[in-house]
């Protein structure tokens, strides 16, 4: 599904160039449930942003379903992301002044989908996530777990083949976290490719493959141990 070849990302700072991703080579297959782990500053969120096509200032090659993302223009990348990805955030990032229903409808409102069809999709999603009763509530009226449920519903309403989640249970207590992870597992079993960033070994246990990052280098991949950069690891 995704192939990264020698992908690098850096920022220019007054102190010089700071590298956040170094020579990442990674292949992700359809239906995988991948967990990206590593200490703070390892580059986990940066890699997720690259994969989500939110970041386009990287170098190297990015292939998405045989499409050379690195050759696409900014607008084309945005279009690709809109169609194929869904994002789940640690802080849910629901819009406070929109109801649950309106929040879920948000990604659809940016697509050319007729209003009636959108209403149908929203109703289906509310039903599927069992939050019909909460459709007219505002995010501030929901618990953290409920808010994240809405966040996930919003991320998958347009049925993206790739779901990206950045610390999806970081703000939840363990019971709620477990429910969310069960939901991810269910979505994955239904065919959605999932990539999550987490510090939690328990959450990682829900995935099929774990990638370890450190100082921007990919230092471990349970599916492909040889892809790591032991030299740099030992140097760090």
């Amino acid at each position, binding site marked *: 599904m995704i192939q990264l070849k020698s992908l690098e990302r850096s920022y220019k700072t007054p102190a010089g160039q700071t590298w956040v991703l170094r020579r990442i080579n990674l292949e992700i297959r359809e239906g995988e449930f991948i967990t990206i782990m590593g200490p703070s500053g390892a580059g986990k969120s940066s890699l997720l*942003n690259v994969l*989500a096509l*939110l970041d386009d200032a990287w170098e190297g090659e990015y292939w998405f379903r045989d499409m050379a993302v690195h050759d696409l223009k900014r607008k084309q990348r*945005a279009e690709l992301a*809109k169609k194929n990805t869904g994002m789940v955030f640690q*802080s849910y*990032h629901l819009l406070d002044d929109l109801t649950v229903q309106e929040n879920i409808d948000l990604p659809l409102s*940016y697509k050319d989908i007729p209003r009636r069809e959108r209403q149908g999709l929203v109703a289906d999603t509310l039903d599927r996530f069992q939050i019909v009763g909460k459709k007219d509530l505002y995010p501030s009226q929901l618990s953290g777990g409920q808010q994240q449920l809405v966040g996930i519903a*919003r991320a998958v309403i347009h049925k993206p083949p790739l779901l990206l989640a950045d610390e999806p249970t970081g703000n939840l207590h363990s019971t709620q976290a477990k429910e969310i992870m069960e939901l991810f597992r269910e979505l994955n079993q239904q065919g959605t490719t999932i990539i999550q960033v987490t510090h939690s070994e328990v959450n990682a246990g829900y995935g099929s493959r774990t990638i370890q990052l450190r100082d921007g280098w990919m230092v471990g991949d349970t599916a492909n141990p040889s892809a790591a950069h032991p030299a740099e690891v030992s140097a760090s």
Partner: protein
Amino acid sequence: MKGILQDIHYALRQLRRSPKFAALSIATLALGIGAATAMFSLIDRVIFRSLPYPHDQRLASVGVVAPIIDGEFLFAGNYLEWKQQQRAFAGFSSSSGVSDCDLTEEHPVRLACAAVDSSFLSTFEIQPLLGRNFNPQEDRPNAAKVALISYPLWQDRFAAERSVLGRNLSIDGQQTEIIGVLPRDFEFPTLAHTDLLIPQALDESIVARHILGGVVRVFGRTKPGQTIEQAKAELQPQFNSFVQMAPPEFRKVLRLEVRSIRDLQIHDSRRAAWLLLLSALAVLAIACANAANLALARSAARRQDLAVRAALGAGRVRLFRQRLIESLMLALFGCIAGTALASVIVHIFVALAPAGIPRLSQASVDVRILGIALVLSLLSGILFGTAPALERPTQMLSVNIAAGVRQGRLRQALLVAQVCSTVILLTSALLFVRSLRNLQTQPLGINTQNIVTANFTLGQQKYATAKQRLAFFEALESKVRALPGIGSAALADSIPPRVPPRTMPFFALQAEGQPPLSISDGIGGVVAWRSVTPDYFSVLGMSLLRGRAFGEQDRAPASHVIMVNQTLARRLFGNEEALGKTIRFHTDRDALSAPFTVIGITANTQNQGLGGEAGPEYYMVRRHTENDVVFNYPDSQRITILARSAMQSDTVQQQLRQAVAMLDPTVPVEVSTLGQTISRMAERPRFSAALLSFLAAVGLLLTAVGIYGVVSLLVNQRTQEIGIRMALGASRQHVIGMMVWHASSWIALGAVLGTFGSLLASRWLGSLLFGIRANDPGTLITAALALVAVAMAAAWIPARRTAKVDPMIALRYE
């Protein structure tokens, strides 16, 4: 006290730390305070400031209003009678008016002499700076001539020497003793320029002889504690006698008028002055709203800082005071900058102002205005500083959504109010500009191209008789006709579109074959007339509808012909043919005793000034005789030369000057093109339109800055939301559109409210406009759309910054 000093110190430090906020707030307030202060300076003299007479509210202009004479008046005979009879006023005086007089000395100069009663200065409670007032003996016919001179004349001609008293001047060839110098701030009640005050020397015997005498303007000072209205009621018996003595046709239209001197001076400027003051206050309110919005925005940014202070024990009062002091400091800086700006604006507008606006030339930013500016600034500081200062410390301790919503609503309400005020300002300015354009483009019935005019008045002394005047004018006509390059030329006592100086009541014209006007119809209005030479019509390019224009043959002493305009022909003869018919005048003037035959009918010309409606008019040819009707009138020494020429106007003007100078080099001549003369007639509406346009432009600028500021703030506050939306698929155009759409709802609401406000204001504006209704839909829509366009642009510029929002960074605002 120490705490307040500490707060001032802290406020100054805060402002230094936020130079952008401080500069923007000060600039906004400076614009508002500057515009308001400048407008106040310009109209202060008109509306608020005391007149330069002690107890000026007790002074009144008194007289009878009749359609044939402009303003209230009495005949000299009535005045002398009323003066004896009346008990309503403590002081009662009059003036025969201000007229040209020549100082015929070593360096001859034309002056303005005001002829007044000996009781004039005492009625106005004016004390001469030097010397004394006239006594009643000096105010009699054939008494030795005396005069009081004005302060500027004393300064310029007599180098402010005190020995000027007792010196003799030659005024119109008569020795006149200077007995006093008028105070520096002296002004004639009609605001006419005055160099000399001379006794009017009315002949008191005319009362016994039942002679009306000339027209005088009468002034009274009410008794202490008595109002002008009460004085008017007490004059009713005198007025009733006046009406009984008047010709029956006039009785219906006569009216007693007793009004304050201030009203006499500014009655037609008052409404415009109030409009300007209200507009200036609206601009100040817009500036305050802007400053308040900036302060609210900053308050949101400083919430953390204030929360820490609250947590460390600062009470609500202390925090309120501290933030209010910050606002007041900003307002004070705005006041300093605004006053400097006001001074510049006042200088510019006084320089641009046309002559004749009461006291405008005296406008300046003086101590009184500075005081008002300071008060306005402090009020502004309190006004815009109170809203953010009222925020409770507990609201600052955490991100309080309700407080944020309240602040957001307040900001939106302020913006709506700004937009609403600006739409009203824009509508008013547009109405004035369109009214001005209508005034300037209205059909006048004449061709103003390539016409040069020269106006002058012959000296009373040198040209005392009709024979002397006739001789001068005939010689002048020959000279002007002989000038090279002059296509055609004419003499006239006045030219359109000015109102002719002479009118005749309609009932005095008896058309051949038509029934006379019934007495119950009153005077039937007035008919304007002009005394012209034959080429008058061709020079002005007037259309002759039927018959012919005057020819040389009509100027014979025995000739009695007349031309009428279309309106008069219709009123006199209805649908019957007027040509060849005669008109008789019911008047005791000898020159009008014979019937006049109508030889031509002209199209109407604008003859009631710019903005008036063309009325009935007739023309008399200037005959070669001193018995011509024009010489029956006291001001027959005034004349206007009209010359049509393809040459440069400067050359023609020079030629006309020389032609007059060759006959009498002491006669001062005013030359101009007819186009310039007409343009000058539109100076006052042009000035009002310029002032209102200036205020509307400032209002528009401030509103645009306000919208820019609020949308900028919104973009900053909603960065995370924008990031989320972009992460969920929103395009950059979409988020820009969202921000602009958000702003557009307040803009639209403000524009709608402003349009309703303009409709309400239209009732008040109507009388100031020409050729356009104050609720003109085109103007209302244009003003609203112009505002919306500028406002949307002001919203779009900061909204574009959303395109630069990086969703990755935005999403890091965890």
